[in-house]
């Protein structure tokens, strides 16, 4: 009789195993929540508070509440707007480049050929390197005196990173090199999910390859490609390491570099918090536009 109850009651059965499902769930979830609160949510709210003060982390002066002054100052500062313009240029160039190169690579890889696994893995390597390392060695590649890029292109002593006109694009090119594999990986997943029989039907229906691409491939890969674009846009928008390591031109001062300087060189802690919030809101807005498109793409 007792054994019968033991088999029927899930609670007592779990007790014999040592830990109940609820205990296991708590064991995994509670540390996560604690970490999230300490390292994410608390600083987020705390910095929101600071963004309304004139606080400076370098002095002992108490923080004075100054209302929206930080926000008003920032939004009316033409220098900040130029930082945003530079960031936008950077985002557009690097994300477009990554989508074209990444999706193109995915199309090339989406067939069977010898050593396919090895080739794919090699192509993914840039993505796994550290940003700072990538920045440093691309600086060497771009070097006007001994860099291999000028040598290969026969450009003589062309200045890439010291040239205010080209520096931003040179950094964006490095970003394209590094992150195209990410777009490639997601696109490849999308491409391999397109049913093969659709292509067979199209070939029997005498559809041209271009028509097949725009009518079958692209619509079916679009949702996952959009996800890749969302990720890359968010990342490019807050890019810091590459530009910071590679050059220090005023024309490459993207908004995160401005933010860094404001916070840790000029010690305008309160004002930099406000700028960080402006960036956050912008990224959220852009992401929302994409998500809207994504939902539409999935609906259709």
């Amino acid at each position, binding site marked *: 009789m007792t054994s019968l109850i033991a088999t029927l009651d899930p609670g007592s059965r779990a007790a014999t195993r040592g830990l109940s499902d609820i205990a296991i769930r708590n064991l995994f979830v509670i540390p996560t929540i604690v970490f999230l609160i300490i390292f994410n949510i608390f600083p987020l709210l705390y910095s929101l508070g600071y963004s309304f003060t004139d606080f400076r982390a370098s002095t002992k002066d108490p923080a004075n509440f100054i209302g929206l002054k930080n926000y008003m100052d920032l939004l009316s500062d033409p220098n900040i707007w130029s930082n945003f313009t530079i960031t936008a240029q950077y985002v557009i160039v690097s994300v477009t480049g990554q989508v074209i190169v990444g999706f193109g690579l995915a199309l090339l890889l989406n067939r069977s050929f010898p050593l396919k696994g090895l080739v794919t893995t090699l192509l993914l390597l840039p993505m796994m390197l550290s940003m700072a390392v990538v920045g440093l060695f691309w600086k060497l590649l771009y070097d006007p005196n001994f860099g291999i890029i000028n040598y290969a292109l026969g450009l003589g002593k062309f200045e890439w990173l010291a040239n205010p006109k080209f520096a931003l694009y040179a950094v964006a090119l490095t970003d394209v090199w590094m992150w195209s594999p990410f777009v490639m990986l997601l696109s490849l997943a999308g491409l391999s999910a397109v049913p093969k029989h659709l292509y067979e039907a199209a*070939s*029997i229906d005498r*559809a041209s390859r271009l028509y097949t691409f725009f009518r*079958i491939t692209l619509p079916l890969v679009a949702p996952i490609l959009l996800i890749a674009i969302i990720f890359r846009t968010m990342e490019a928008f807050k890019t810091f390491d590459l530009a910071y390591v590679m050059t220090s031109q005023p024309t490459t001062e993207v908004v995160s570099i401005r933010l860094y300087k404001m916070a840790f060189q000029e010690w305008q802690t309160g004002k930099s918090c406000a700028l960080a919030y402006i960036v956050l809101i912008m990224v959220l807005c852009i992401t929302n536009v994409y998500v809207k498109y994504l939902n539409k793409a999935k609906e*259709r």
Partner: protein
Amino acid sequence: MARIRLENISKNFGPHTAVEDLDLDIADGEFFVLLGPTGAGKTTTLRMIAGLDKPTVGRIFINEANVNDWGPAERDVALVLQQYSLYPRLTVRDNLAFPLRSRVRNLAPAEIDQRIDYAARTLRITHLLDRKTDRLSGGEMQRVSIGRAIVREPQVFLMDEPLSALDAKLREALRTELKDLQRRLGATFIFVTHDQVEAMTMGDRIAILNRGQIVQVGAPQDVYSNPRDTFVASFVGAPAINLLKGEVQGGRAVVTPKSFELPVAGQAPGAGSYIFGIRPEDVRVESGAPVEGRVHDIENHGIEKIITVRVNEHFVRASIPARVDVALEEVIRFGWNAEKLIYFDPRTGINTRHQIA
């Protein structure tokens, strides 16, 4: 319209032989069914006719032209697959227009509309034309796929189990519709299926495939009443044929090991060992019949009952009218219609009548 000829076609996938030394001659305007179990090579054969796969050996002719080197687009065939293969994100109308908008055809928009209208009316999907394809039911999607084949007015319709993903009622309805469609269009249809009911009801002729080889080609009735071997006999027909091992001795069929004996008819071969094949409808259950057995199982099919009779260790299926009352384990008597008895060689499984011919 087209006549299709396959000449000793073989297809290997690596070491695996999918189709071996296949010969077929399909007449213009024929509804031809390729029937066989999974892995028999039916789909491979169809894909080779479509041009999606190339034969390893052999030649394919469409209307006397050798099409071995032609791509699927040049062969002017239409293919309907089991998966509906509709183009995503397009309406039904755009899906139907898809094959017509190809630059190769260069059709006027009015002509395209006319063909879509015709196909939609034929398949009764006119009311669905402006719907997106992912809002359709399985039956509707399959109709659209068939419609996409019709608008092209191809030489040949190739269909790879187009009905097997549908539910039973719809399958039955579309079966009739397809046969009717083929008759109206007068087109050559090649239809792949593993369902012998589809083959029997739709085909003008059936080719039965097993393990990459053709076992028998013939009209449904012919295949049913005169199967080439035990494989065809048991694959075609539901309920399945009774196959009983035994011997012919002095004008009687003796089912062994010693179980029961029944008379044979005049066309019987000489004495020796055979596998006797008898269809359930040719087994007669009546009070005066020579053999006694017990009712082992009863299946009610509405218009008839299929009963399994147990005689020692042998089981014999018989179809009886539904109104006859029988109970499990009831003792009954049965005989058979000796004229319909088929004699198979016990070693090769081949019908003795085919061996002579």
